[in-house]
Each structure stands twice: as C-alpha cells, then as structure tokens.
C-alpha cells in the first residue's frame, strides 16, 4: 500500500470532531490543502465554520480525529508561526486603545523574546506588511478611527507580518469597501503565487467562484468538498443551507 506523504499537505484534517460541553459543533470533518491552494469554507451561521478555524489554530481542542499542519502537530505549527488568523470584523473590539502599527506588530510577537521587544527585522516586516495593504498613511491611527475596510486590511497586514504560510480568513469580504475588496483579491493572487495556502469563510457565493480553487461545504460536517467547478452546484448548496434554494441565496444564474 502506498504511504501518503503528509508533508505534501499544508493542512490535513482527518475526521475531526469538536464539542463544547457535550454539544457537538463539528463532526467527522476532513480537509486537505496543498501549498498555493485557495479554499472557500461555506455554510450557514452556526454550521461550524468558526469552529473549524478554531480547531486548526488550536484555539479549541478537537475531541476526535487528527490535524497535521505541514505534517506536524498544531502545537508545533503555533510555535513556528505557521498559521495566521484574520478575524471577522465582529470578532474584535474596535474601541480597544491600539493603533495600526501596534496591531500589525502583534503579528511578530510569537517570534520575539519574552518582553516582546521589536528587533530591526520585526520593524521592517511590519513596515512592509503595512505598505502591502496600503495603510502607510495610518500608522498611528487608533483602530477605532478606521473604516471597516481599513480595519480589515490592518488585520491582513498582521497576518502578512507574521510570515505565515497558512492564512485563515473569517469573512474577509464582509463590510468592506470596493477598494479594500480589490486590494484583498489582488493580495490573494500574490499569496497564491508565493505558495501560501488560504482558507476563507464567506457568505458571498460570487467570491467563491471568483477566487476559490476548492470549496468545502459544511453543515456540522462536510456536505461536499472538491474543485469549485465540480462541487459548487445548486444541489450541494441547497443541502448545505438546509433546503433553501440557491436562487434565494444569490439570485438565479443568468
């Protein structure tokens, strides 16, 4: 029997289950992603999208199954700064007294010493990251004074500064302006060319068709998984959204 070389997969989640105090949030979920792949994570609210992210980052423990990141445990992925998480806009306190520079610098914390003193290389990484998301004019702006799109870009810059090879993005396109949307989609292409692996959750079906090589449809478990062109069918989407017709969700296809 041919043995699988797990090193080939950036993310390899096998039959993972997550429950919160006995309440099942996700069961028997599988996902395999290679370098340079962009995968859309699609499901209803409460279908387990955020739970899936939490399992991959190690923020919640899985009760069953196995997760390998670059062939290693989640724990060593954390130590190696392999995964970056870009939170949903609602997931952060926008009134927190912190500015753009300091948020992006947090991307470097994991590789700094215990006092988190920035080295020259950290400063450079933060500068470059902020430049890539076009926020150089807002270095010392408190995040509370940014627009939704600018705030999203700040967290994207944090992920870039972290130099992670896997990016998890929770609703990257929700509540952002057109300029930010364009910038994010350009960055996605750059990330892909750099060999980064991207897993993004979204409500917007058009974005899935536009960016995602693969799509993972979930409703507590995997409903369908594969190439977007094959898997992203009206039937599968209807199943994922509990019988609601896709026409209702994103209009009839013309």
């Amino acid at each position, binding site marked *: 029997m041919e043995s699988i070389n797990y090193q080939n997969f950036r993310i390899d989640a096998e039959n993972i289950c997550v429950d919160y105090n006995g309440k099942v949030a996700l069961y028997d979920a599988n996902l395999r992603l290679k370098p340079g792949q962009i995968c859309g994570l699609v499901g209803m609210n409460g279908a387990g999208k955020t739970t899936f992210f939490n399992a991959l980052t190690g923020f919640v423990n899985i009760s069953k199954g196995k997760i390998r990141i670059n062939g290693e445990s989640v*724990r060593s992925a954390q130590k190696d700064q392999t995964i970056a998480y870009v939170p949903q806009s609602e997931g*952060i306190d926008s009134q927190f*007294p912190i500015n753009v520079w300091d948020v992006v610098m947090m991307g470097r*914390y994991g*590789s700094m010493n215990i006092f988190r003193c920035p080295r020259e290389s950290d400063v450079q990484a933060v500068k470059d990251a902020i430049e890539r998301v076009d926020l150089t004019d807002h270095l010392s702006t408190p995040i509370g004074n940014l627009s939704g799109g600018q705030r999203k870009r700040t967290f994207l810059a944090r992920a870039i500064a972290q130099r992670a090879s896997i990016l998890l993005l929770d609703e990257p396109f929700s509540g952002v302006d057109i300029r930010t949307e364009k910038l994010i989609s350009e960055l996605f292409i750059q990330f892909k060319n750099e060999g980064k692996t991207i897993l993004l959750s979204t409500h917007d079906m058009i974005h899935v068709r536009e960016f995602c090589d693969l799509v993972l449809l979930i409703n507590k478990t995997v409903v369908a998984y594969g190439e977007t062109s094959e898997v992203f069918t009206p039937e599968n989407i209807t199943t994922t959204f509990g019988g609601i017709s896709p026409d209702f969700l994103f209009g009839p296809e013309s």
Partner: protein
Amino acid sequence: MELCSFLTLDSFITDPLTHDFMRKALLMSSLVAAVCGFLSSYLTLKGWALMGDAVSHSVMPGVVVAYALGLPFSLGAFIFGVGSVALIGFIKQKSRVKEDTVIGLVFTGFFALGIVLVSKIKSNIDLHSILFGSPLGISLSDVKQTIFISLLVVILLSIFRKDLMLYCFDPRHAKTVGINVLFLHYLLLTCLSLAAVVGLQSVGIILVVAMLITPGATAYLLTDKFDNMTIISVLSAIISSLIGIYISFWFDLETGGSIVLAQTFIFLFAFLFAPRYGIFKLKKFFAGYK
C-alpha cells in the same frame, strides 16, 4: 482652629504630614493605588469588572481564617480569591446557569461565609476595618506585606505587559502564534486577587472593586493609546488616594469612602469633559472658537 489653618493651601497639605500615621497612610495608599491602577487598564478592557467584584468580595473568609490562625492575611485572601474564580468556572461549565448569575451567587456565598466566620471566631478581628479599610491604622507587618505584594504584581504586569494586552485584545491570535493563553488568564486572575488583597487595606472589601475599575474607565475616556491609558490610570488612582485621605483628615470622613468618591468624581469629570469621548467634547468646543 481647623478652619484657620485651612485658609492656606500650604498648611492644608503640610499639616497632616506632621503625623506619622498620615505619612504612612499617604505612602501606602499611593502604592496600593498605583498597583490597582496599573491592573485596572487590563480589567476594564477585558470586561472583568464583575470578576473584580467577585474576587474582592470572596477574599473575606480567607482574611478572617488567616487572622484567626495567625497567618499572613494576604495568603488566606489569595487562596479564597483564586478559589472563587475556580469555583465560578466549574459551576459555569457544569450547569446551565448563566455566567453573571454564577459570579453573583458564588461571591455573595463567600462573602456571607466571611461574615458568619467573623461572628463565630471571637478574636480581635476588626470587621469594620476589613469591610471599609483602615489606611490610617495600618500595622508594620501589613506594610511589609503590602510592599512585597505590590512589587510582585508590578513586576509580573511589567514583564507580561504586552502579552496581557494581546490577551485582552485578541486571545485567538495569541493562541495561534503559540502564546500560552491559559497562563495569561491565570496570571491576570492572580494579579487581580493580589491587587484586591492590597486594595482592601485602603478602601475595604466592599469598595475595593472601585480601585480596580474606576481608574481604568477614566483613562479609557481620555486616550486611544494603551500605554497612555496605563499611565493615566495609575496617576488618577494615586491622585484620588491622596485627595481622599486629605479630605477625610480635614473633614473627619471615612477614608476608604473618600478615596473612592474622589475616583468617582475624576471619572465624572472625564465623562463630561474628555476631549474626544466626553459629553461636551472640549476639543470641538475650542475648535469652534478658532
């Protein structure tokens, strides 16, 4: 007599300093205020006001038992402070009761236990000084304990300053980059218990939560930078302590209450006149005249 010396600001400030107990009270209360003020920024941003209230009330039986056994009261207080948090976490996880309800019932239970113990253990425990603080009657061994605990908390907070900020801001990111979030959680709880222990000497168990949240809330209205928030929080806490002690000296008022009231007034001032976040937004007001 008192009114006469009142007429000059100089004697208003220097007269109390001629008393040994007043010098000690002013110094110790400033130290305690600085510690609580430092921690306050984290607690207000983390949303742990109710947790602060719970821990500070729950230390009551610990203080009583420690006094009765002749142990350092900070030890007993610390054990019960951390114990209450552990119990809150346990009950929350094992039952369907909502968190704020669990917090409320656990800390009142501990507090009641403390009161019952005081009435049963007939010793020279001064209930009044535990409940309302006695910065003017602080003993030498208490001074040593307070200095030791204060330094410990300040050192811990200083070392993990940035990690704790990240933990309050985005624990998920902290976890993702391999920072030990559980450790930070318990570190913050430990500091909270310790700060409650030193704080209760100044203003007593009932009001110590004010020391832990009001300075942070005041600072939050005045700045958008975390470091500045910490500095403002510490300064406003120290100033309130000094004002409170002086006022209580001259007008013969309860000291703990005076300190907290001074904090409340400073908060109200920020609430009304903070440049950006105050009701009257002074910045805009002055800009209009330019």
